């Protein structure tokens, strides 16, 4: 979709980020980051290790308090609201309804001592589902969508491979139909062949569900496949932003040129 088409459908962005900064003592985590994310758009954040990607993502997702800036989200009932002004109860509610967070390490986003079905069902129960049969049916349906066989529904994730765990984490996050998904290196730490399958799956889900997402990654192949737009970070600052293909095929900033030419070890 072109930006103009998208703007015609959505009157306003889903997420508006204004001047978000976060320091760790004297060290800069991220500085002065601003951008709009439109409904249905996937934004990639790339940059070398230590450039501030995770810091920024955590600030956006309400997991880390920024020192300055605003993170406005288009809520269902109150329109654009600064999530930093929300009560903790409201923010946590958002965290299990309209928002989802996929961690790099699946065990950080799963309950390892709860069955796969229970992991997927948790968000449903958290928003009031009280019919066991329906919860289980939805869990099985979602396991199927992430290519986990139905007969694994009662197994614990500790018995799953790395790739399966990551797919389970994705199912657990998407089951309540979130509008915005945050992902930090969702394919990091996986074998290359497993990565490819996961990427394929993610791309399918993003398209099918019309998800908006912010994906942090080292891997330019990931953003090439998933992201509509790209932000390139260096030392906490955004140095270049644009449509993914444009940035990757015709990088303007010297740092991005290095990044794309793979001279930099990212």
């Amino acid at each position, binding site marked *: 979709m072109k930006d103009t088409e998208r703007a015609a459908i959505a009157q306003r962005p889903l997420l508006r980020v204004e001047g978000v900064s976060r320091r760790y003592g004297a060290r800069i985590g991220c500085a002065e980051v601003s951008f709009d994310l439109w409904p249905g758009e996937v934004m990639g954040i790339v940059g070398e290790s230590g450039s501030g990607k995770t810091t920024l993502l955590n600030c956006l997702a309400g997991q880390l308090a920024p020192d300055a800036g605003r993170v406005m989200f288009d809520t269902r009932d109150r329109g654009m609201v600064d999530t930093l002004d929300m009560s903790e109860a409201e923010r946590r509610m958002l965290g299990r309804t309209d928002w989802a967070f996929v961690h790099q390490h699946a065990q950080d986003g799963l309950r390892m001592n709860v069955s796969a*079905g229970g992991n997927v069902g948790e*968000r449903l129960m*958290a928003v009031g589902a*009280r019919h066991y049969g329906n*919860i289980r049916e939805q869990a099985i349906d979602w396991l199927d969508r992430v290519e986990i066989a139905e007969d694994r529904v009662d197994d614990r994730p500790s018995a799953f491979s790395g790739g399966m765990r990551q797919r389970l984490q994705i199912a657990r996050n998407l089951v309540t139909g979130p509008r915005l998904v945050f992902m930090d290196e969702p394919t990091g730490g996986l074998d290359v062949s497993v990565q490819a399958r996961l990427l394929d799956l993610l791309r399918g889900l993003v398209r099918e569900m019309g998800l908006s997402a912010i994906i942090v990654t080292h891997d330019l192949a990931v953003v090439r496949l998933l992201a509509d737009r790209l932000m390139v970070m260096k030392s906490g600052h955004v140095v270049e932003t644009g449509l993914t293909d444009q940035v990757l095929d015709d990088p303007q900033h010297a740092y991005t040129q290095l990044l794309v030419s793979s001279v930099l070890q990212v």
Partner: protein
Amino acid sequence: MSAYNFAYLDEQTKRMIRRALLKGMAIPGYQVPFASREMPMPYGWGTGGVQVSAAVMVPEDCFKVIDQGADDTTNAVSIRRFFQATAGVAVTEKTAEASVIQTRHRIPERDLRQGQILVYQVPIPEPLRFLEPSEVETRKMHALEEYGLMHVKLYEDIARHGDISTSYAYPVKVEGRYVMDPSPIPKFDNPKLGMAAIQLFGAGREQRIYALPPHTDVVSLDFEDYPFQAGKADHDCDLCGAGSSYLDEVITDDAGGRMFVCSDTDFCRERREAGHVGALGVEAVA
């Protein structure tokens, strides 16, 4: 006896515990932290319950202690003796006569009345502990009423056993607000939690007190398609013939002989004294 303050604890400590109890009564089901004292008995022997009993006891009280329904276990006997010695209160085995009843693992069969106090010894007060080990996180969940996790536990039960297999410490929601662990009573006793007596819960090691005022609305958690069932052995008491009491299975010999008897010894004795006889019972000599 004069070596102790009344009911062992000093007055300042009792006041501190009473304040926690009042707060607990004002917010039914909410776990109030309190500074648990060392008691002259090991944790696991009901030090939380003993401190609560000590804090509410007055010289006119008549005290009863049950352990799994029985008045005559070592644990029950030693706690009863403790308060006989330190408070000089009357003691009884009769539920109807007691004004304060300390219990481990049971609610008496006989309906408790207004004016009576039931004190529970609680080992683990936090119902969410099983799935969420972080105390900070569970406190937040209570504060924000995020109780989805409790149903995850019940979901796991059904997924694994085909049914909600939790049969003790079955979680309840109190007055539509706090999720509470009713201590390890059998779920058979859950329907009695809305009783007319005051119920006080003391966890010594975990330093928590919570309470249910008379006639509190207490609902056992469940699923629409797996509704809560109190459950009961498919049997009558072999001694007194009671058909609706909670039963213990007792092995009677090496040859696999067994019988079912009321876990509430006072209830069973009263029935036998009133002339009721079970399948393996002998008529009581009244």
